């Protein structure tokens, strides 16, 4: 039995076919509230598909997704999505992009801009409120996407390889910031990545997906190093062990 107060999101026996292509087969997974769960697996294994089903952007062929005990049928204010390619409106300023979710909810302009400014500051983009996306670097654009998702104050944040399009240094900084967010924001994070190190570094729980048709092969919950200082995680023996273990189980699927 899943307890809705423990799990923010529950995926039950989800199948997804794209015509002939079987993307997900009988996938079940729980996402504990207030924690970060990574979906880790090789490219094309169905991670984005699963995330979009949870978001309500595409329907499952069968099975169901529960968010706070309620079956997902469409996108809702309880979930916010961070896109791999940022999905910013190039004709709109940073502040309008960040406030866009609130704009769609009919929040008055002054109010939503005040909220947007707060989250723009939180992601470290103060001073860029009136810049346009094409004036920003990839890393800064993803900060805009993140601020937009945070500003609607959804309980569940769905992040689809959010750092894959930014350079390595920026990526590391993002990962540290993400750990801070998980601690301070009291939200449930579902984080898609194909990087083993990244998954182990940021996650409370890692779900390893098999290549198509995708199921959960293994769930790993790092125990010891989560409370340690961010600078020490990458040298922690448990961190290194888990990275090795995941690689050992995935290597047979990689040619």
């Amino acid at each position, binding site marked *: 039995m899943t307890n809705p107060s423990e799990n923010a999101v529950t995926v039950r026996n989800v199948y997804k076919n794209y015509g002939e292509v079987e993307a997900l087969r009988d996938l079940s997974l729980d996402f504990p509230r207030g924690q970060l769960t990574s979906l880790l697996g090789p490219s094309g294994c169905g991670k984005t598909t699963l995330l979009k089903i949870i978001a309500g952007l595409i329907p499952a062929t069968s099975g169901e997704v529960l968010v706070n005990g309620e079956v997902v049928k469409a996108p809702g204010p309880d979930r916010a*999505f961070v896109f791999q390619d940022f*999905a910013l409106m190039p004709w709109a300023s940073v502040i309008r992009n960040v406030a866009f979710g609130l704009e769609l909810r009919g929040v008055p302009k002054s109010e939503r801009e005040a909220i947007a400014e707060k989250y723009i500051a939180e992601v470290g983009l103060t001073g860029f409120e009136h810049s346009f996306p*094409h004036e920003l670097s990839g890393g800064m654009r993803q900060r805009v996407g993140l601020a937009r998702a945070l500003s609607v104050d959804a309980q569940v944040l769905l992040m689809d390889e959010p750092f894959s399009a930014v350079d390595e240094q920026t990526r590391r900084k993002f990962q540290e910031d993400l750990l801070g967010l998980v601690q301070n924001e009291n939200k449930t994070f579902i984080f898609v990545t194909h990087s083993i190190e990244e998954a182990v570094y940021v996650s409370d729980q890692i779900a390893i997906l098999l290549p198509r048709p995708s199921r959960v092969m293994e769930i790993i919950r790092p125990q010891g190093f989560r409370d340690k200082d961010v600078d020490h995680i990458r040298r922690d023996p448990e961190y290194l062990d888990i990275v090795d273990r995941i690689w050992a189980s995935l290597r047979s699927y990689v040619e």
Partner: protein
Amino acid sequence: MTVFGIKLPNMSSLLLWGLLWEFIGQIELTFFLPPLSAIFATLLEIGGTKAFITALKETAHAFSIGTLSAIVIGVPVGILMGKSRLIDQLLLPWVNLFLSAPLTALVPVLMVLFGFGIKAIIITTALFAIWIIVLNSRAGVMQINRSLVEMAHSFGASPFDAFTKIYFWAALPEILGGVRIGFIRAVKGVIIGQLLISIVGFGSLFELYASNFLMKHFWAVLIVLFALAFVIAEFLAYLERRVDYYASRR
């Protein structure tokens, strides 16, 4: 243009052609080509006459209503075609047919249907402009970044929100391109309509000048029309450049 290493301003070659025209006019090679200076003198002369101002007003009226309806109908229809496969399959053959059809041949039919007046001219104008506007709006929507649509959907956008806040803006560079070409075609439409119906606007003026061999008057009106069409096209090209910054990054 560069002459002897000196860069001349844009369109300074027009000056050369103007001088040539003046010269041919002065030596009275043909009655068909009066000197350019005489044409401009005539232009100043008739520019203030009631007949000319009425013609200009009627043309502007038909042109603005015709193009406005072409935009108001064409842009949403094009966006809908880009969004929905069904609507696209229903309408695309017709749009392509009319885009390449010799619409001038339809004008007499329109005259029968809508009378020999301004109404038929407005409809002719709209008919000339609308198809390229539809087709360009459609193309603009079809190249839209899918994740922008998903983004709007995931933050709870209604279909109407998605239409006005995402699709329209994402397609704007193409829409403006279509409107610019549509306007150029509309100039043709409004003039062809007036020539065929020849009792309103510049049609009646042309009729009057041509049948009385008033070549200076004829050229003066023609120059005004050319200049107007050019200014409109340049203005729209300027608007298009203003959205250029995001045209390549959607």
